[in-house]
């Protein structure tokens, strides 16, 4: 048995001449989301895709497709030939299935004749099939405004019938907007920031700074786990793990302690940017939110932003912590993020960090360090890990 899922896409509509590019991107993402699920075909209709997959995997397919950015809604559909008797049979079957699931009193018909060759027009079909349903289920009544069941029938090369529509992930197809490098710490914020930019069509690579032995190997495993959780949304994720110990030790030994975090973050930006350039990414993404911690005040962000030449996207900039946590729970990264394997690094967070740093002074403090050498060695030491959905 074969199942069909009808997918609707949104903003791509607006993209004029670029539309084929966006659609192509989306189809690729749909196909790769469904990899391993059996023989799958994707066909295009106007503003829609139809996914044909083995019925046994339909639920799994729905689940996966609900995480593909660029889709606004999904409907599991039944298909039949363009024959009125067959359509009637399917319609009755679908309504019966819904009646079995619970309290249902009213219905309406929403027929659409996309192929004008078909003998009946949309209105005629509504009336005809409505009559058939009423005949089969005398307890049901028609309610055009608040129907319990809205039975859709779309006539194309074949006829598609469905009663349910599930919200899709929205946004733009991943990859349609280029690529960005996400600074991924393992905390609650950065995975959410990556997710939000993927939603806007960017494909995401990550860079993680690893300070063994000051942070545990388990902190690295935690970041791997976060990448696995992001992959179903972002598609493929390549993670660059940069050794950061030498940099932290050098800053600790040579710079004023209240500046530790700021100088450290400037190094992170430099390494992230170099890694981005080397991997064809055109922007950086961070999980910063104004005022959340000392290193995220306006003045602190000014200091860290100073070393970035490419755009830095901070999608969480105006969100409260609870709002960020809500998203983290929704995308299932929260439980991983709150595992406590990060706090060894507290050695390098000063007891009294600056909240209103002065850029000039920080730059002078940094002059004591061999910035180029430190950044170069960190980049040389990068280990790459790949994560697929």
């Amino acid at each position, binding site marked *: 048995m074969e199942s069909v899922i009808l997918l609707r896409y949104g903003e791509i509509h607006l993209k004029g001449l670029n539309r084929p590019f966006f659609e192509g991107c989306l189809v690729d993402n749909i196909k790769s989301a469904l990899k391993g699920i059996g023989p799958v075909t994707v066909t295009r209709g106007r503003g829609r895709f139809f996914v044909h997959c083995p019925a046994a995997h339909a639920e799994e397919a729905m689940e996966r497709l609900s995480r593909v950015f660029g889709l606004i809604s999904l409907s599991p559909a039944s298909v039949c030939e363009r024959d009125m008797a067959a359509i009637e049979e399917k319609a009755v079957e679908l309504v019966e299935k819904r009646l079995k699931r619970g309290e249902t009193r009213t219905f309406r018909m929403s027929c659409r004749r996309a192929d004008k060759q078909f003998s009946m027009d949309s209105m005629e079909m509504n009336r005809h099939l409505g009559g058939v349903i009423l005949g089969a289920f005398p307890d049901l009544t028609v309610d055009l405004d608040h129907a319990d069941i809205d039975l859709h029938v779309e006539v194309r090369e074949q006829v598609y019938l469905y009663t349910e529509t599930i919200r899709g992930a929205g946004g733009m197809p991943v990859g349609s907007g280029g690529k960005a490098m996400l600074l991924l710490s393992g905390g609650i914020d950065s995975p959410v920031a990556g997710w939000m930019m993927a939603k806007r069509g960017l494909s995401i690579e990550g860079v993680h700074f690893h300070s*063994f*032995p*000051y942070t*545990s190997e388990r902190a690295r495993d935690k970041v791997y786990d976060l990448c696995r959780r992001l992959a179903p949304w972002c598609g493929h994720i390549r993670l660059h793990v940069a050794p950061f110990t030498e940099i932290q*030790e050098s800053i600790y030994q040579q710079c004023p302690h209240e500046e530790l975090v700021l100088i450290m973050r400037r190094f992170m930006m430099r390494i992230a940017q170099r890694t981005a350039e080397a991997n064809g990414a055109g922007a950086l993404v961070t999980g910063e939110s104004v005022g959340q911690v000392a290193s995220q005040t306006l003045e602190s962000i000014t200091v860290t932003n100073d070393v970035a030449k490419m755009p830095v996207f901070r999608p969480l900039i105006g969100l409260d912590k609870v709002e960020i946590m809500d998203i983290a729970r929704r995308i299932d990264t929260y439980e991983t993020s709150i595992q406590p394997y990060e706090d*060894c690094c507290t*050695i390098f*967070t000063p*007891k009294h960090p600056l909240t209103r740093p002065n850029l000039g002074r920080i730059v002078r403090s940094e002059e004591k360090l061999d910035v180029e050498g430190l950044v170069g060695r960190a980049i040389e030491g990068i280990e790459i890990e790949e994560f697929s959905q």
Partner: protein
Amino acid sequence: MKPVYLDNAATTAVDPSIIEAMVRCMAKTYGNPSSAHLMGIEAERQVEAARTQTADVLGAKPDTIVFTSGGTEANNLAIRGILDTFIEKGDQGHIVTTAIEHASVGRVCDWLETKGFGVTRLSVDERGIIDLEAFKRALRPDTRLVSIMHVNNETGSMQPMAEIGDILKNASKRPLFHVDAVQSFGKYPFAPEKWGVDLASISAHKIHGPKGVGALYVRKGVRLTPQSLGGGHEGGLRSGTSNVPGIVGLGMASELAAARPIAEHAMALKKYFVECVRDAITDFRINGPGIEEGAAHILNIGFKSVKGEVLANMLSQQGVYISTGSACSQRQRTHASHVLQAIGVPRDYVDGSLRVSFSIYNTTEEIGESVEILKYCVNKVRMFVRR
């Protein structure tokens, strides 16, 4: 340098002869010991032989041994198995335990408290040992159970089992006595019958046996409520198809442990370790019992101005495996160990405490090498304290 494993209180390397015997058992004797056919009978024979091997180490009869999935299950079965009937009758009463128990006793007692039991958690002195007078005073006419561990897993402090047993024997109304003997079994003399112990929990993987298997010693005549129902295995106390290869491993590990001079060997290593540290590192203290007074295989040592986790990470980078505190509590958020707090380790040293634990496989050379590395690491970590 070959890696040096000094985390034997967390778990031990499995003895090669045990691995071999378990593999043979899995390959050849895969029958269910409850089956009537010859393959089942052979498996049953092996299980019973292991029961005898295990009981022998305790100086007990084979029918006192109930195989479990390990120390945690044995502790749960012992305590809940005794007290369930009192909950049912609504006649809860009182429990005496200590402030330094393993979580698989401590958490069960916390839970019983919510079920209406009074719980006395005896405090310990700075050596980690309870006060026998305080213990006597804690006993009440309605005390149902005393649960006290033999060797503490973090500090190696040993409780005076025989004396506790004597006090209980002379009590006007004698409560049942459970001992978590997971860290002592096979390493130090443990005589439940002589000491008046009714229940004792043991585990295979602390004595070079496999993980996932242990046992509860249940004195004849003590009635327990089973905590898992089913086919009535292990005299109805622990249903579930027997873990035959695991049990074979436990039997062998028990026999091997009893035949080896573990305590003597470990004590020599511990003394040497401390001697080397004394020569190499400043500002350290031994937490808990004195060196000779505590269990031979466990040393808890605190270094001032050091973060234990960073130190342990750095050591493992150099191939020396040592834990901070106890492995069981490291996944929890609260860092300061309840045991180190109970024995009153000063604040500057708690964070920098390591638990070094020895086995029969460790050598003097390894100790020398690892203290060299420890010295390097402590000095390095001390360069980077939070300011």
